[in-house]
């Protein structure tokens, strides 16, 4: 098991380094970094001095090493467009995105598992047909259009919920949260549904197919034969055993939730990382693009790693298989 974890860890580090190389190339080959930093009136000597100081005439390998060290120590450079350290911008925007991703993840998981279980237990009932149609729609709807339809219905026609921004936020010093005010919570509803809908359909389909399989297995028949109530059989015995793959998929989806938040944040003008990134793409703001890329890759890789570990912990069979294969 330890060898498996070490192998995974090495792989994760390699992925991050590869993404780092892409980010480094962005800096290296897209435009002249000196030109991007200094004004028109800077003399050639001053430019050369800056070049020396930043180490831009050293061998590329050394520069890449310096780049990795900088990134690892949280030194992401200065935004071309906003003229402020990228690290500050990111720490300002991070809470908004994390809260949105968290809310949509919870929404997708709870609704997805429930809808999947219901539609597996009684596949021909009206409600499970409605759920299946919804899931087909969820797969075919472009994510931004979901957001626009929700805005149309709940903000424009009904006027119940706000259509943009985070509402009132409470500043905790290191973190700004919208979870403590009513307007903040209201502002969170539509974006998290928009962001979570695709994940919801995915989880629902997965739970459904897993449940079909589990419900036909021997131990469920045995549980029924023991005279346990149907409710207990379904929720305690069947559902619990479908949750292992669901945890992995949900975990892996958390990564793409972060990426898809770019779309949701654009629709709802949510002041998070995604909005920062898309504005950087519009303006060719390389430092922000590179930093976002690094951040997302580290988050992705960490989530993948945690999922692998959890998988082994939750399913004892995997542990045995790996230890025996390692012993052999």
């Amino acid at each position, binding site marked *: 098991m330890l060898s498996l974890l070490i192998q995974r860890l090495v792989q994760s580090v390699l992925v991050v380094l590869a993404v780092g190389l892409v980010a480094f190339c962005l800096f290296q080959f897209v435009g002249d970094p000196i030109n991007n930093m200094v004004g028109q009136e800077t003399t050639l000597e001053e430019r050369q001095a800056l070049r020396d100081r930043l180490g831009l005439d050293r061998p590329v390998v050394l520069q890449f090493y310096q780049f990795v060290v900088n990134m690892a120590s949280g030194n992401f450079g200065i935004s071309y467009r906003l003229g402020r350290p990228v690290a500050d911008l990111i720490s300002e925007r991070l809470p908004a995105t994390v809260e949105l991703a968290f809310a949509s993840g919870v929404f997708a998981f709870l609704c997805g598992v429930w809808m999947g279980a219901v539609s597996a237990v009684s596949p021909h009932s009206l409600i499970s047909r409605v759920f299946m149609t919804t899931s087909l729609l969820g797969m075919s709807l472009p*994510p931004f259009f979901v957001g626009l339809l929700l805005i149309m219905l709940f903000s424009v026609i009904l006027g119940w919920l706000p259509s943009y921004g985070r509402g009132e936020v409470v500043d905790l010093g290191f973190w700004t949260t919208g979870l403590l005010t009513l307007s903040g919570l209201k502002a969170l509803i539509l974006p998290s549904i928009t962001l979570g809908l695709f994940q919801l359909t995915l989880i629902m389909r997965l739970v459904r197919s897993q449940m079909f399989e589990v419900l036909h297995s021997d131990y469920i028949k045995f549980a029924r034969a023991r005279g346990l109530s149907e409710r207990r059989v379904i929720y305690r015995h069947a559902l619990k055993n479908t949750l292992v793959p669901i945890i992995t998929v949900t975990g892996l989806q958390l990564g793409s939730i972060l*990426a898809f938040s770019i779309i949701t944040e654009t629709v709802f003008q949510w002041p998070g990382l995604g909005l920062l990134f898309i504005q950087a793409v519009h303006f060719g703001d390389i430092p922000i693009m590179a930093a976002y890329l690094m951040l997302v890759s580290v988050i992705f890789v960490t989530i993948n790693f945690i999922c692998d570990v959890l998988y082994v912990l939750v399913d004892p069979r995997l542990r045995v298989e790996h230890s025996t294969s390692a012993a052999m």
Partner: protein
Amino acid sequence: MLARILDSDAFYSFRTQPLVVVAALIAIVSILAAVFAPWVAPHNPFDLSTVDLMDAKLPPAWAEGGSWTYPLGTDNQGRDILSAVIYGTRVSLLVAILATTVAMVIGVSLGLLAGFVGGRIDTVLMRIADIQLSFPAILVALLIDGVTRTILPREIHHEIAIWVIIMAISLATWVQFARPVRAQTMVEKRKDYVLAARLLQISPTRILVRHVLLNVLEPVLVIATVGFGLSIINEATLSFLGVGMPVSKPSLGTLVRNGNDFLFSGAWWMTIFPGLALLLLVLSINLIGDWIRDVLNPRLR
């Protein structure tokens, strides 16, 4: 020939599923309308001489103040929404078809190569695929688009925007073809017919192209249909984010983005109709994709 088609299992499963028939009809109508857009569309939304600012923001014909000259209303510059949607479908379909084809060609070739040759080429290609798969396609596409946007001057970028998007989407999605093709190739290359061809001293390239390729094409067709729907969504998303098709040559996504600014002033038709067209298109393609998968692979049913 026709009798054989009408008698086949595939046609039977088609005929007995009304939803698939409707989906096929919607897809065919959309494709025909897109191909013959200049003749089908009631107006030419890009001919400035026919556009009148006085007609701006007219509601659909059935709403109060609408007229049948513009069945689905007009946008903020007085362009007919119906015509814009038809022309937009044309752009969306064109981008998606080309992007899927390029992704398919890259993915299938590299998948064949990796599976057939193996060794270091296989390791390198699959490592790249692994890394790319851990990122959503839309992020990769955004990045490629962002970089070209920075490198190229604005005017040139506008000119070649459509090619940039096609490249961005196909480079972001080739892995979906490469992975299954590689796996299938590794199975096929151990089969007797490949061995026989080798013994006949047929060149490896010829074996790969003439024999192995034909045997791995079946899953490719299914992936291509699903990938086609996804390409439409990806293109629309890029355009909606403002990094896709420019306003001068709008796709359905660009139209939704344009209309978005007017949602609150009550001009909902500018956003909703292009969005609905997009939804119907993708929905029908997904339904057809499901049907193709069922027909080709009855075990999955």
